[in-house]
């Protein structure tokens, strides 16, 4: 009787049911879209939205705290400082943003007399910047401005119950706005001095703004006094972290005088500096000096909001062209057009060639052009690159693993896009970044430091041996320019051609009109003159130099080996001392190194911002400054003092050249290279021009969503056949086994 049952029957039913449902799910998903790999919602397909990526989540979006390029990519679109960099004109020029005009400082001496602009810094007692701001600058819509029927702030006393269901600022039902006035600019400068905000530029501003240091110190005293009082009240159970989380300390800015910043009228304020500092105007182009409404700061100080991570550090309140819509630093940051943005026109002048490139076609049109900016977090380069190629990201950098796929270097040494990129209509924008990566000698070191001709020659020989042209080719895919001095191209003081060559490391090749690195034989000769023939000292011992760097990544080994190999050509033994960044900084701070690798990214396009890295009074060991090499040459320092507060002029250029000659001869640095940024854009993106100084450039860019949709559809047609074939092979391949087992079972049952 039992022989009528099919032994594998139960199993078969299960397979069929599961397979059926899986199939239904797949069909539903695939048929719902003609491009199933589209990472965006169907409703977004034709929107005027720019899609890009970010790698590191921004740490701060509070303009008093943010200081990195990751943060400025967002902040630059939201906040408007008084000044901005012209989008098209080169060399970089400042133009008004929220200010009516670029302020010209008034210099006065001790007796209050007005001094001419060219006055030498030591005669200046005060430098007064009077900044007039534009009228009608409206803040974005924000709940901090919402008022109840009595005109009182609607969301001033929020409880946890009040904000149930609220996760972002946009979830608040009522919002308001108001005009930005001079007091908001003044308030923001006061915030910079607030010790609780730990503004990264506070140490710098202390040196220049009148009364800044005292104001900040007074606030800190108050902060400490409040903490002390709270601790006394709580006794030994006092827990500062828990206490301040529940009851944030709000410092009263109005309690103390701050003579360096004053409101003149609703649309004018003054900043008073203790000395002449012409570079100060560049700081006025950074988000630190943007207007911040006091209502917003008070709104975000409410504990329940902070518990939900709704803070000024995540949800800025600005007057700029865009405002935050979604802040999810782990997934996406979405900015939408600020409907209250004041009128600003696309520039009508540029540099030579901009007209021919079509960069002036939109001259005079209202900014911004794009409705939404969507930044997706992509930590890995491969998915990011592939999605760019599929048209789902509008721009991309080039990671080293995709470099060969994107760029080929022509026989003339020019980087060009590969045919694959050209066929897709992708275009390349390159720009030299205002940065330098250098090797720094410790000038306090007995072996490698010092200022004698022998020591100079030793460092020059090392500079020759470390062939940075080769380094750039091998490790940067050619994306860099070997440096001749600290000043990168595009910044006043950089000289191209023969005149700009570092004659201690290079010769000028007249035939090819380019610098040619001096030979290794010449470097060896310098070594001999330095007292190290063949890399050995007078006692025949090899010269051993330690190399400190924070390159803890696995792929840094080839770079370190390259350094070792290059110095071996001179007979020098390079001892690598890689440590984590903290240990590295500690060693630099104590001067416990011989040769290090470091870099600098300019705050503003002025040679002073590079030369100060070599000024004696900025020495790391003695003064905890940014001069990591601890270089101190009295003549260089004298010229630096002269140059730092001068306006750009032939006289200033002459001094810069003299300074360059001094440091080239002393060689406290191996001059390293200036990185070149490569950016790729799809054909549907317009008005793109690289601008290494400006961080508010999204307002100028335009997009053609129709063309993008057409190409996305064309590039992303799905292919189902391989899946069907794979399933078929699996099913067919299993049949013999099923048959054999069935036969075996039936045979057993029959027996």
């Amino acid at each position, binding site marked *: 009787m039992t022989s009528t049952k099919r032994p594998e029957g139960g199993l078969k039913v299960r397979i069929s049911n599961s397979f059926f449902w899986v199939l239904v799910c797949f069909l539903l998903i695939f048929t719902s879209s003609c491009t199933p790999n589209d990472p965006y919602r169907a409703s977004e397909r034709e929107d005027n939205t720019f899609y890009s990526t970010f790698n590191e989540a921004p740490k701060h979006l509070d303009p008093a705290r943010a200081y990195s390029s990751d943060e400025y990519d967002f902040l630059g679109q939201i906040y408007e400082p008084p000044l901005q960099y012209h989008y098209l004109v080169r060399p970089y020029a400042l133009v008004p943003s929220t200010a009516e005009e670029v302020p010209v400082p008034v210099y006065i001496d001790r007796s209050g007399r007005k001094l001419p602009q060219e006055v030498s810094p030591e005669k200046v007692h005060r430098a007064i910047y009077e900044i007039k701001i534009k009228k009608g600058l409206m803040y974005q819509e924000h709940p901090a401005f919402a008022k109840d029927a009595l005109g009182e702030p609607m969301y001033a006393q929020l409880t946890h119950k009040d904000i149930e269901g609220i996760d972002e600022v946009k979830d608040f039902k009522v919002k308001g706005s108001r005009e930005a006035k001079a007091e908001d600019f003044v308030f923001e400068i006061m915030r910079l001095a607030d010790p609780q905000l730990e503004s990264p530029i506070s140490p710098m501003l202390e040196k220049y703004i009148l009364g800044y240091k005292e104001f900040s110190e007074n606030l800190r005293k108050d902060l400490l006094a409040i903490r002390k009082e709270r601790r006394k009240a709580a006794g030994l159970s006092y*827990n500062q972290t828990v206490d301040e989380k529940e009851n944030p300390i709000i410092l009263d800015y109005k309690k103390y005088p701050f003579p360096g910043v004053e409101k003149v009228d609703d649309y004018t304020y003054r900043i008073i500096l203790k000395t002449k500092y012409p570079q100060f105007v560049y700081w006025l182009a950074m988000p630190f000096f943007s207007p911040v409404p006091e209502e917003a700061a008070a709104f975000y100080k409410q504990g329940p909001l902070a518990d939900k*991570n709704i803070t000024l550090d995540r949800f800025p309140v600005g007057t700029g062209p865009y405002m935050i819509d979604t802040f999810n630093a*782990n997934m996406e940051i979405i900015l939408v057009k600020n409907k209250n943005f004041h009128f600003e026109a696309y520039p009508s002048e540029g540099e030579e060639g901009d007209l021919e490139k079509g960069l002036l076609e939109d001259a005079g049109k209202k900014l911004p052009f794009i409705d939404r900016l969507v930044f997706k977090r992509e930590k890995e380069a491969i998915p990011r690159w592939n999605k760019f190629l599929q048209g789902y990201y509008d721009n991309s950098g080039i990671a080293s693993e995709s470099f060969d796929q994107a760029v080929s270097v022509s026989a003339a040494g020019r980087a060009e896009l590969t045919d694959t990129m050209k066929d897709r209509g992708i275009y390349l924008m390159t720009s030299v970044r205002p940065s330098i990566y250098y090797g720094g000698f410790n000038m306090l070191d007995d072996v490698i430091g010092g200022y004698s001709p022998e020591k100079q020659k030793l460092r020059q020989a090392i500079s020759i041996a470390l062939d940075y042209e080769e380094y750039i080719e091998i490790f940067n895919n050619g994306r860099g320019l070997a440096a001749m001095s600290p000043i990168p191209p595009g910044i006043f003081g950089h000289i191209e051609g023969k005149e700009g060559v570092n004659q201690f490391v290079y010769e000028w090749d007249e035939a090819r009109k380019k610098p040619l690195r001096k030979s290794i034989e010449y470097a060896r000769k310098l070594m001999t003159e330095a007292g190290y023939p063949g890399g050995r000292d007078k006692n025949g011992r090899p010269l051993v130099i330690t190399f400190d760097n924070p390159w803890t990544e696995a792929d840094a080994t080839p770079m370190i080996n390259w350094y070792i190999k290059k110095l071996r050509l001179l007979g020098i033994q390079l001892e690598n001392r890689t440590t984590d960044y903290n240990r590295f900084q500690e060693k630099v701070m104590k001067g416990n190194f011989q040769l290090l690798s470091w870099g600098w990214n300019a705050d503003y396009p002025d040679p002073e911002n590079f030369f100060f890295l070599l000024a004696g009074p900025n020495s790391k060991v003695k003064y905890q400054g940014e001069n990591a090499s601890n270089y101190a040459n009295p003549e260089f320092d004298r010229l630096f003092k002269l140059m730092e507060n001068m306006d750009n002029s032939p006289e200033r250029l002459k001094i810069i050249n003299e300074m360059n000659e001094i440091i080239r001869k002393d060689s406290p640095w191996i001059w390293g290279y200036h990185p070149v940024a490569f950016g790729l854009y799809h054909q549907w993106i317009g008005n793109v021009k690289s601008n290494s100084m400006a961080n508010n450039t999204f307002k100028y860019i335009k997009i053609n969503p129709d063309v993008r949709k057409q190409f996305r559809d064309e590039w992303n047609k799905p292919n189902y056949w391989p899946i069907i074939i794979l399933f078929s092979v699996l099913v067919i391949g299993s049949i013999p086994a099923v048959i054999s087992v069935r036969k075996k079972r039936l045979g057993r049952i029959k027996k």
Partner: protein
Amino acid sequence: MLTYIIRRILYAIPIVIGVNLLTAILFFYVNTPDDMARKILGEKNVTPAAIENWKADHGYNLPTFLNTKEESIGKVTQTIFFQKSVPLFWFDFGRSDRNNIDIGNEIKTRMWASLAISVPMFILGIYVDLFIAMMLAYYRGTYLDLWGLIIGVVMMSVSTLFYIIGGQFIFGKVLKLFPISGYDTGLHSIKFLILPVIIGVISSAGAGIRFYRTVFLEEMNKDYIRTARAKGLSEGKVLFKHALKNSMIPILTNVVVSIPFLFYGSLIMETFFAIPGLGNFTIEAIQAQDFAIVRSMVYLGSILYIIGLILTDISYTLVDPRVRFE
């Protein structure tokens, strides 16, 4: 059972304190509060005064474990360890050192994305592993079993990264069937989850299948299986009703202990598929030297591990009536 659970929870208290203590010792052995300040304050304008101020503002100016300047209980309470660790016991994780975000809120937000990927991967993974393992056991001795084993060993030997990059390349780039990476909220997230879930299931299948096949084969040689067959039960019933049920102890040992960790997510999957889960939260915090997040996540991990072990013990009683708590 209740007494047993309460006893286990009480046992857990010294374990959790020990974990916290060990975390603090290890963390501060590698990073001093000065290191943390330097790392968090950035690269420019970091003066010694700025470092001291940062430490004072974040409560890192206190001694780590013993404050000799204080009196009586203050010697213990006015220390970094006490001030930072005690609130964890009522799940007050505090604020991040790096960017002042509320850690509890961040965990609550991120865990849903982690669960969205790890739960289907976990359930489907068990289902697929058990099913294929049973199939192999059922077809034991045939070429299907042989090739199943060979493929299983090969799959075990391949790195997860290979499956991810290969899967993204084949299904996302070449066949264009799924988004290469990304995430969305609500039901829109489904299309982003299919590929990582498939890859997650495939990448863990090799080890799972081999383990469960061994478990099933051991059961299938036992007397009660022979009896079931002799009764004339179908092979399906023998496998699913008898063999599977009696194999549950080793299966549960393997499975239940992993359940609480589902909300921790998967580090590599989340990174490569840009899923905003908890997977890389801890790693990012370690890289950023954010002690507040590190201690919170380690604490949470230890709690989850204890819960996992308790759940495993409870599940034994459910599948095997012979197991009793005493």
